[in-house]
């Protein structure tokens, strides 16, 4: 029985960590319209920094890394989050100043690959391709619990972080910054014509997303106890993108739903396929990825807005000023209907025939 409970708690940890990742990605892609394909390098930096600040000084006989210290528990998480923020700030100058559309997407992918290669090829940095191992779990000796209750304790930590992230994102979406970001996503030049600083608005979204990714990385490494380049690749990032597309772009609850559907339901439940005949662990893993790919394609075709689409926003003041009447309850006005994010549904280009 406790096996099942332990497994369910494991899924809980993944769910909340991916919630955090999905919320951050929702902010940068769903709201701000930043085409970042390689969201996982921020997770990696968060994880590495949280690991080296927990592990203590580097012992080059076992594994070598920089900045080895050992600080009290919640601090490594904060260091991880700060690492994500700092990485975002630096990379934001590359990604956000001039690059748009496909170029932006390609360069994010390329920069992530450069980081991956540099980390892997420099054993002095974070122990190269072998990665860091033996990261102790937080407060293990303090709370002193058996495995299952400790697992529950860890789920509690991740849930707390995810809830904080959720509350924060809820505020951001409704804030003036959220409005500016949505405006930039819909039409950048209109936003800048109205005096908004497009670069810094996107940059702030990018930094917040990086912070959340760094925090998620810190949680992941404290949970897994190890982190190496083989564990972070564009494919891991694709899981986050897939989760957001399926759950619902630009919808925070959709991001959480996607974190449940893709990394937990599809990824973990396919593990229950019993091995038979030609099916082994490798083919099940392959099948899992194929399933995620096909589901993403189906969603992009049949429901590109995701299970939970972006909530329609109505601006009473705009309706009153520009149309001269109050919106009809339940029906709204043409104008306020046009204001909500129209996302890849009806634009027909000349490619049709």
């Amino acid at each position: 029985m406790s096996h099942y409970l332990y497994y369910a708690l494991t899924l809980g940890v993944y769910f909340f960590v991916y919630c955090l990742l999905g919320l951050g990605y929702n902010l940068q892609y769903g709201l701000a319209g930043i085409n970042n394909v390689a969201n996982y390098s921020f997770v990696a930096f968060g994880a590495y920094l949280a690991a080296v600040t927990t592990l203590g000084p580097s012992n080059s006989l076992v594994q070598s890394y920089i900045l080895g210290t050992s600080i009290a528990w919640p601090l490594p998480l904060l260091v991880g989050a700060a690492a994500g923020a700092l990485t975002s700030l630096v990379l934001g100058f590359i990604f956000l100043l001039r690059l748009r559309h496909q170029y932006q997407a390609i360069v994010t992918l390329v920069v992530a690959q450069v980081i991956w290669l540099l980390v892997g090829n420099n054993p002095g940095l974070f122990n190269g391709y072998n990665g860091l191992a033996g990261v102790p779990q937080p407060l293990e000796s303090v709370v002193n619990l058996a495995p299952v209750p400790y697992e529950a304790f860890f789920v509690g930590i991740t849930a707390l972080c995810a809830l904080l992230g959720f509350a924060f994102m809820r505020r951001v979406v409704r804030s003036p910054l959220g409005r500016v970001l949505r405006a930039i996503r819909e039409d950048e030049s209109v936003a800048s014509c109205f005096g908004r600083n497009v670069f810094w608005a996107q940059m702030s979204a990018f930094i917040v997303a990086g912070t959340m990714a760094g925090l998620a990385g810190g949680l992941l490494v404290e949970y897994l106890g190890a982190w190496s380049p083989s564990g972070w690749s564009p494919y891991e990032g694709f899981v986050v993108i897939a989760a957001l597309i399926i759950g619902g772009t630009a919808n925070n609850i959709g991001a959480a739903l996607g974190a449940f559907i893709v990394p937990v339901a599809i990824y973990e439940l396919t593990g229950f396929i019993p091995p038979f005949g030609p099916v082994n662990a490798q083919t099940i893993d392959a099948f899992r990825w194929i399933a995620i790919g096909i589901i993403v394609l189906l969603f992009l075709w049949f429901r590109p807005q995701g299970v939970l689409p972006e909530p329609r926003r109505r601006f009473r003041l705009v309706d009153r000023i520009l149309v001269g009447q109050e919106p009809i309850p339940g029906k709204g006005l043409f104008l306020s209907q046009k204001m909500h994010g129209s996302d890849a549904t009806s634009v027909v280009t000349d490619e049709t025939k």
Partner: protein
Amino acid sequence: MSIFVASLGFGLVTSAILALAALGFTLQAGMTNVVNLAYGDMMTAGAFAALVGQSALRLSLWPALVFGGVIVALLSFVTNRLVIRPFVARGTKSFQMIIVTFALGIILQYVIVMKWGENFYAYRGLSLSLFKWGSFELSYEQLTIVIMSVLLLGGFHVLVRYSRMGRALRAMADDKQLARACGVNVARLTDIVWLISGALAGVSGVALAINAGSFNEIFGANFMLIVVAAAILGGAGEPNGAMVGAVVVGFAMEVSTVWIAGSYSEVVALILLIVAVLVRPQGLVAGRGKWVLAQ
């Protein structure tokens, strides 16, 4: 000095393979405005198709290469008809198109894993003899790849420059609507572009596998960003630019190994790409003076 000359030889081979691959990638990007992240996995598919040609059809090395090219040309054609074209026709946004091709690449890669697993394979019939000219030495396979690449690229250049279809292709790349108004069958040409670029992906995938000696399910995907670097450095959507970019990237990667570790040669290529995109986004050969991809 001899290391330098030898690295020039490897640079020549890498450039030759890269030019074929980058030409296919840039054709797709320029003619259909799709950045195809599945391109690397299509190269892998070509390598495995050639493997099937060798084992099931008893083909020798070079016919197997042609077989790989043909199979991937068909695969690329079908992918375009079934997935890419419907999405483009619907006006899917550029980033979502990238996710579509990313998903296609993952599906393709793991279909290969299901059949062949995560193992390394090699072709039969690789000779180990070397062609030597001073300290410049290449295997006969590498030499054949270089000659084949030059012939294919030359043939493509003649096709685009002097044939009626080539004129239509150039017209389509410049202005799709105007081309259609002048009676160019854009849908048919798009099919042809996907056939050609698929064939180039397949052939370059097999050539890359021959050059590397062995290949696995991910080697094409690992090579893809270098292909993208060559294509964008030359000017996205510019066939001649892809060749120039391939030569620059290929030689930069191999010659850099004289001074820095070989594991960094990919970093060299990628940093070239980042600098190029930031400093000269229109590419080295900027034919039409506009961002073909930026829409």
